[in-house]
């Protein structure tokens, strides 16, 4: 693990008119690491990653990817560099069947250049590669899921489809925006090993979550945001022990419960 972080955000700030959504937040992520970002609703988590992935222009601050400045770039260029993201409100292509949903990312210049998931973009037929990726994230090849139209799938499946869409680009970083929210306990249980396997494949992950128990089991480091400012950053244990975090989450039983278990 060389010490140069794969992704570095310096003093990122963004304000909509008077309201400051993100106030001089800086973070860095090392290769193959999982960084968790937690914080109450409206603490600027999604706005922060929107700034990182170029969907919103930052008012000030810099984003470095492997040392190169990518702050002003449009979202498709950033995605082309390997920083992919899933959306908090899922955005599948409702009119297309599942495996066709994956044909689009395989059609992107990055997939063509890097050969996509196991060389599917350039060499293989994109439909079969799409079905391979779906099998990778847990939908068996001969089940009916790959052929069903995306709009008829339950939320859990759609969340996996989002993840599959990122995988198709052979990403270096995946930013998951509340990928566990809205899933049943069993679905989350089957999702966690998938995340671990991605980490073993060498993909860095930034995960924004409210489900702290699963996040703490997976994340190497955790960062807490509140009202757009960074409260604390460190290993899950340090963060849990810190009283400022309790104050941020004052009154939410969940933290108490997790604390008692740990």
């Amino acid at each position, binding site marked *: 693990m060389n010490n140069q972080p794969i992704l570095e955000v310096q003093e990122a700030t963004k304000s909509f008119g008077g309201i400051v959504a993100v106030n001089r937040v800086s973070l860095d992520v090392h290769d193959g690491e999982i960084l968790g970002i937690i914080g109450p609703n409206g603490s600027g988590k999604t706005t922060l990653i929107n700034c990182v992935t170029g969907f919103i222009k930052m008012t000030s601050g810099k984003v470095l990817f492997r040392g190169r400045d990518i702050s002003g770039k449009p979202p498709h260029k950033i995605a082309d560099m390997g920083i992919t993201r899933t959306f908090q409100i899922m955005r599948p292509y409702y009119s297309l069947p599942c495996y066709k949903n994956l044909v689009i990312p395989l059609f*992107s210049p990055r997939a063509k250049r890097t050969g996509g998931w196991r060389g599917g973009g350039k060499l293989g037929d994109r439909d079969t590669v799409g079905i391979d990726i779906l099998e990778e994230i847990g939908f068996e090849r001969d089940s009916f899921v790959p052929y069903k139209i995306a709009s008829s799938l339950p939320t859990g499946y759609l969340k996996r489809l989002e993840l599959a869409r990122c995988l198709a*680009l052979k990403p270096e970083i995946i930013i998951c925006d509340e990928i566990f929210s809205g899933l049943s306990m069993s679905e989350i249980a089957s999702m966690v090993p998938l995340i671990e396997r991605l980490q073993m494949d060498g993909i860095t992950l930034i995960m924004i979550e409210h489900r702290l128990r699963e996040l703490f089991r997976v994340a190497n480091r955790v960062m807490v945001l509140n009202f757009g400012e960074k409260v604390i950053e460190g290993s899950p244990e340090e963060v849990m022990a810190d009283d400022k975090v309790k104050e941020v989450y004052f009154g939410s039983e969940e933290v108490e419960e997790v604390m008692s278990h740990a």
Partner: protein
Amino acid sequence: MNNEQGRKERLDRGIKVRTDGLYAIMSLRELCYLTVPRLVLIVGLLILPLVMPSMYWQRVISIVCIYAFLALGFDFLAHFVGLVCLGGAFFIGVGGYLAAILNTSFGFPPLVTIPIATLLGGAICTLLLLPCLPLRGVYFAIVTLMYPLVLMRIIEALNILGGTDGIMGVASFANRWIEQYFVILMVLLFLFGLRRLVNLDIGLVFRAVKDNDQAVRASGMNISFYKAIAVFVASALGCLGGACLVHIYMWSGISLFALDFSILPIAATVIGGAGTVVGPVLGCFILVPISELLRAFGTLRIVFYCLILVAFIVFRSEGIMVYGQRKYHQFERWVKI
């Protein structure tokens, strides 16, 4: 009915599932089930000019084909790419003027000017429409509706390209049959070309841009580049129509930008069935002859044709072709057990 046991069996039993997937079709029955409608369309289009009573009706068919180009372009853009472009007249005008200039000042014969005018016109229209690609919904529609009017006023004000008199003496096709079959073959070519394009991977990207352009952006693709390609395809189709029209009527002027070229293709798409590439062509084949038949009634014809249009939109029927497709898959026949 004798008392034998029998039940109704759907004609497409087994075919629909397998053909949607990746499996091949085996029996002749399934083969002709799928290809018969397409063959009927192709053969019908080809023999139509022969069966037409007088030369006048053949000229009407060429006009129908020109509107069919526009309707194809509009349907492709509106249904598969999500860009509602009300500027059919803009493409006709640019294509028409290019063909006229190429023919009169450079002396190229029609069969050379039409391809050049189509491609060059498509490029020019795409360039002019580039700044308003990021617009959405009603705004894009209104801007594209205004483009032809602006060009018309500019040509009128600057008195260029022959001003209000337009360009005369454009060479026409060698003879009637070449003109007729050239236009019909082009319609068939683009009809099946578009149908194939839409199912290609790039066609999927267009549909994705319509469904959810943020997701496409997040997968590393520049949506305005793909929107530009889609607009180029549609405008090339429109310019082809414009070029053919100019060569049929041996004349090109500012009235090529008239509103009729923008409104009729949309009406045809609505009546024919948006989304099916064949629908709009069918719509044109219904609307234009009806408006010719009603010509004897003078301006009442426009009133008729508007009322039919409003009736179709208000009763929100999905159009003849979509209704036809749905019904076609539900044919049943009585089967003995």
